């Protein structure tokens, strides 16, 4: 059996089943709630079923590994932060190692990410979003280090949505602060240019700025996805070396196994670091973008 990147990649990608040891495949169900029918003119469905009298929307969704893991992350966040909020109410100090650990992270994001980027007074408004992004991304990243689980953040579908929601928060914050027109006008800094050339330049700059705004958020999605995907793919490939040489000489197989496991351990530690780093970078950049749209110049 040769080395197949696709086989290794299958363990990094989303799947419709959990592959457990001893060949156990835990297949995830297809949830079918039937179809609902809406009149043809209903927005936004009218955009697709143009001309039809009745549009059928099937409520069917195939559960996947990443969906289940995301649900687990959601439950984990509920279990950690709701009791914690209760314990810390009224400015009480944290108790216990776990709570102190999360308290330190919360305080770090508040004092060293949100406040410098957004400003002392406005930071509080965006902290829920930033905390939510950080811990959602972090827990999704860390899930990839658990056996038989995976990182939802290794999929562009997940990071893309996170980036899109961040984009929504950034633009929404800007609109809330400066008004719809004010925000989009403020994308281009005020310049002292007279005549037709000035107008042309400002219009061109406006489009460049708008493209930049979109690209920044797209890169946010790609960066997180690439980091998680690549890291896990490398782990999978190094592990698949063992399988690749399994049918060869015993001594070769033994040597490769030892080297491969050692490499796994080292890379796992790197991945642990990357999981925290990428969650931090995503949150930091989101805070920076929010700050830039709240304080445009």
């Amino acid at each position, binding site marked *: 059996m040769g080395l197949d990147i*696709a086989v*290794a990649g299958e363990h990094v990608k989303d799947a*419709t089943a959990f592959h457990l040891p001893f060949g156990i495949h835990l297949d995830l169900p297809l949830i079918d709630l039937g179809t609902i029918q809406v009149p043809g003119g209903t927005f936004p469905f009218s955009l697709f079923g143009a001309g039809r009298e009745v549009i059928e929307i099937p409520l069917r969704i195939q559960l996947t590994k*990443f969906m289940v893991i995301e649900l687990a992350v*959601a439950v984990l966040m509920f279990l950690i932060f709701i009791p914690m909020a209760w314990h*810390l109410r*009224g400015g009480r100090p944290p108790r216990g190692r776990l709570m102190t650990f999360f308290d330190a992270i919360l305080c770090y994001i508040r004092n060293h990410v949100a406040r410098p980027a957004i400003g002392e007074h406005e930071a509080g408004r965006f902290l829920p979003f930033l905390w*939510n992004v950080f811990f959602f991304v972090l827990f999704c990243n860390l899930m990839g280090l658990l056996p038989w689980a995976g990182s939802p953040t290794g999929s562009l579908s997940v990071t893309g949505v996170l980036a899109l929601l961040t984009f*929504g928060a950034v633009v*929404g914050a800007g609109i809330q602060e400066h008004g719809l027109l004010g925000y989009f006008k403020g994308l281009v800094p005020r310049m002292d240019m007279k005549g037709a050339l000035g107008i042309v330049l400002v219009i061109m700059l406006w489009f460049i700025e708008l493209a930049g705004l979109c690209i920044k958020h797209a890169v946010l999605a790609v960066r997180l996805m690439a980091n998680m995907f690549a890291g896990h793919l490398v782990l999978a490939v190094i592990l698949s070396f063992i399988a690749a040489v399994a049918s060869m000489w015993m001594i070769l197989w033994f040597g490769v196994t030892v080297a491969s496991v050692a490499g796994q351990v080292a890379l796992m530690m790197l991945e642990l670091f990357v999981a925290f780093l990428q969650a931090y970078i995503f949150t930091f950049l989101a805070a920076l973008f929010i700050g830039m749209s709240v304080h445009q110049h």
Partner: protein
Amino acid sequence: MALFRQVLPLVLGGLLICAGPQRIVSCAESHAERGEANVAESVNPLDFKADLALWTAVVFVGVLVVLRKFAWKPLVEALDQRENHVRQEILEAENANQEAKRLLAEYQKRMAAVEGEVRAILERARKDAQTMSEELIAKARQEAEAEYQRKLAEIEQAADQALKELTQRSATLAVELAGKIISARLDPAAHQRIIEQALGSIAELKPPKLN
């Protein structure tokens, strides 16, 4: 959270527009149909699955909405309160520290004053004690002198007395002795005269000074 109430429908609507109901179904169906067959499919990290995206949006926003109410907002408040509390405590501690320093300086000043006072009192007491002892010594010396003089006078008196008695007795003895010697030739009248003469001459004698 007016912000998210504005943005959320936009995002979800956008997702629906991007994905489209048909695509969601086709994705789900292809997932179900392919099953194990997709193992051989090449790994493309950029493939976008609308169902997973929609699921992620729902889960993320759901978590955000729930935790906003039950965790994030209370935590923001709690951290603000803690910060204010700590700031207040530090301010109070600084004030208390300054107050303590002021009090310390005041007490030190007072202590220095009291120390001077104490030293003056001790000095005076020492001087008093000295004068008193000197007086006592002088008085004692005086008394001793007086006692001495009195004793001396007594001794002198006693010596005087003794001498007088001795003189008297020795005169009597001498007269008796002389009478015995010359008793035959002396009448009582002459005898008496001689005694008086002898007494008179003795009385003129002064006892010698003792010192």
